[in-house]
């Protein structure tokens, strides 16, 4: 893509597609592999057109076996390739979990630094698309808990474009979460702007009433809530965490020291999760600034429900606003 063009409106899906394309153009060692990523272009069309342009040697369909996809990628990485694996849906990653945790996360360490593992595992996560079981989960905490893995979550088209390229350029394995119900959100992509580094959180909106930290699909939910909260005279400071491992919490600490209140939002169940970690770290670092306990707005500690019930499960604008009322009541 030319860098001088005027900003173009792209969807998050298109941002990923163009980011993958840019990475493949920049480095011949970048490969794309996964179920239906080739001829079909992926069920969400993220890899649309890549096989046509880069060939079946670099963009190839795999059997329906996630363990094999990750294991193959590990071997390719040992031989100097930079594979980008697509896991078709969040709930499909678990057959590959052993390869990710036992091999991908450990080889660099096990080889005393001789074997970097520049593998990206792309996982569409979260619900809200009315899908059946295994298609709407938020498994990011499993990976953030594992040393040796980097875990990031993009939330908008611009981040999607840049973060996928940065993840591919990273020599460590990166679990790359994509908010599947936001694939078709649009934003202007200006290639002239300098992207934020990969492992950084970002303040999206300034405010003084309370800090709301979130990532992935609920970033837009929280931004919508912040807009509505203005009707109540509340200004919410919204932070997109972007990186879940390592967490970049310095901006969150700075914000909480000003607002005294933190709400952490995620679709994942709350117990022993990314939001737990944020709450614990903020309690430790900002203890004397907290005017209310850290509240979390999350999915429930249940299996993801059937599609017809999912809107009662997912954190929505009203649940975020309720949490704002609750932190202000202390």
């Amino acid at each position, binding site marked *: 893509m030319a860098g001088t063009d005027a900003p173009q409106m792209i*969807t998050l*899906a298109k941002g990923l597609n163009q980011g993958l394309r840019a990475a493949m153009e920049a480095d011949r060692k970048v490969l794309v592999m996964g179920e239906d990523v080739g001829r079909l272009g992926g*069920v*969400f*069309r993220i890899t649309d057109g890549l096989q046509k342009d880069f060939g079946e040697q670099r963009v190839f369909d795999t059997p329906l076996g996630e363990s094999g996809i990750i294991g193959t990628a590990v071997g390719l990485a040992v031989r100097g390739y930079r594979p980008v694996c697509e896991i078709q*849906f969040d709930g499909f990653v678990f057959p590959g979990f052993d390869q990710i945790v036992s091999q991908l996360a450990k080889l660099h360490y096990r080889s005393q630094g001789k074997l970097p593992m520049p593998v990206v595992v792309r996982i569409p996560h979260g619900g*809200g*698309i*009315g*899908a*059946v079981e295994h*298609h*709407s989960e938020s498994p990011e905490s499993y990976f953030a808990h594992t040393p040796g893995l980097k875990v990031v979550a993009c939330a908008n088209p611009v981040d999607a474009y840049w973060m996928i390229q940065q993840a591919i350029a990273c020599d460590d394995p990166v679990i790359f979460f994509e908010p*599947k*119900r*936001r*694939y*078709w959100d649009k934003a202007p992509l200006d290639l002239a702007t300098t992207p934020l580094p990969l492992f950084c959180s970002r303040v999206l909106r300034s405010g003084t009433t309370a800090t709301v930290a979130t990532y992935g699909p609920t970033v837009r939910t929280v931004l*919508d809530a912040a807009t*509505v909260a203005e009707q109540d005279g509340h200004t919410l400071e919204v932070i997109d965490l972007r990186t879940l491992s390592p967490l970049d919490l310095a901006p969150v600490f700075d914000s909480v020291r000003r607002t*005294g209140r933190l709400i952490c939002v995620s679709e994942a169940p709350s117990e022993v999760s990314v939001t737990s970690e944020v709450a614990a770290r903020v309690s430790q670092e900002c*203890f*004397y*600034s*907290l*005017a*209310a306990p850290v509240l979390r707005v999350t999915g429930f500690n249940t299996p993801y429900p059937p*599609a017809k019930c999912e809107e009662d499960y997912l954190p*929505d*604008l*009203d649940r975020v*606003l*309720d949490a704002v*009322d*609750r932190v*202000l*009541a*202390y």
Partner: protein
Amino acid sequence: MASIFALPDVGEGLTEAEILSWHVTPGDTVTVNQIIVDIETAKAAVELPSPYAGVVSELFVEPGATVAVGTPIIAIETGAEPAGATGPAPAGAIGEEGPSGRITTLVGYGPRTATVARRPRTAAPASPPAAAAAGPGLAPLAKPPVRKLAKELGVDLRTVSGSAAGGVITREDVERAAHVVDNGGAGSAAWSGPESGLDSGRGSSAGQHRETVRGVRKATAAAVVASAFTAPHVTMFLTVDVTPMMELRARLVAQAQFRDIKLSPLAFAARAVCLASRRTPEVNASWDEATGEIVYFDYVHLGIAAATPRGLVVPKIRNADRMALRDLAVALDELAVSAREGRTAPADMLGGTITITNIGVFGIDTGTPILNPGESAILALGTIRDMPWVVDGAVVARKVCQLALSVDHRVVDGQQGSQFLAHIGTLLSDPAQAITF
């Protein structure tokens, strides 16, 4: 195979729509997303695109008719095999908004595209969950920034009672406690003696002025109210000839060990209280309402009510019962100096077991002292005057002093209080009796 297209919900929760006009007739060939019909809903007139490609075989609804959402309105012969309602959409439609207002996906109904509006707000404001119980042995309840403030101001939160719901300590509580510390003590009051003026918060109008109740005054008020309306007070009086005590005092101050020491009648009274309490342990005890027990102390932490320029404070002499008269005199003098200079530490005002209030310094004969909260006895020491006194049938001038003892009648019966007061009287009127205690 004909595909049936039913009227979709084109808005949020619409239930019906009127068919305005058809753009197609049976036999027409249509493509995906081609506009086939105009409808009017409660919100707006909209055009509906075809979800199918094929040939129109039948129109089910006449223009002008109002039909419910879900009613079949058109059949299109697609030539394809029948597909389920959630079957794969045409490949070209992935990521496009479908007729139901959702984006078409290969799996699932697809995400909604409509902006989510907030639901009506409930009128009731959110309230935080009730605080955990406050009480002895538990960590004090306070928000972290209040803890920080307390630390900075040197306030021990365990000494502050919380004014918020559930006993939670507020910023104002800490600031008030800090103000008290500044003023020389968080006094629990035993005696409402003359008060010095408060230094701020004044407002005035004709013939009167108002002062905000704060600091020592506020603490004093709270303490005396708590005590007076909790512990049933009984006060008893005894007038004693303390001439022998004063003679002893005159002899002692001439001795080397008492040189440079202020040996006041209060020191004798303090010693007498310590000695006498051994024989009547009920006066050196506390009524514990929470546990339903009476706590007897093996030690005497003797409170001395002291009027200071900033108000009444009651610092304690720890383990006063283990002190000889000389040590008591020294401790009393130090305590008086500290109180006057406002240097009494908050910790020095806690944990008393019995109190003496020396109202004699004001030239007063006697009064009815109010117990320090939690204690069972308080002795008021009146002024010592030259008074006519009958000695061996003759009226002579003697040094005479009135004693008043208030006790918590829940703990101390009249007999025990009388005995205690009589013992003090004996010790002051005939100090040599101390050798028998």
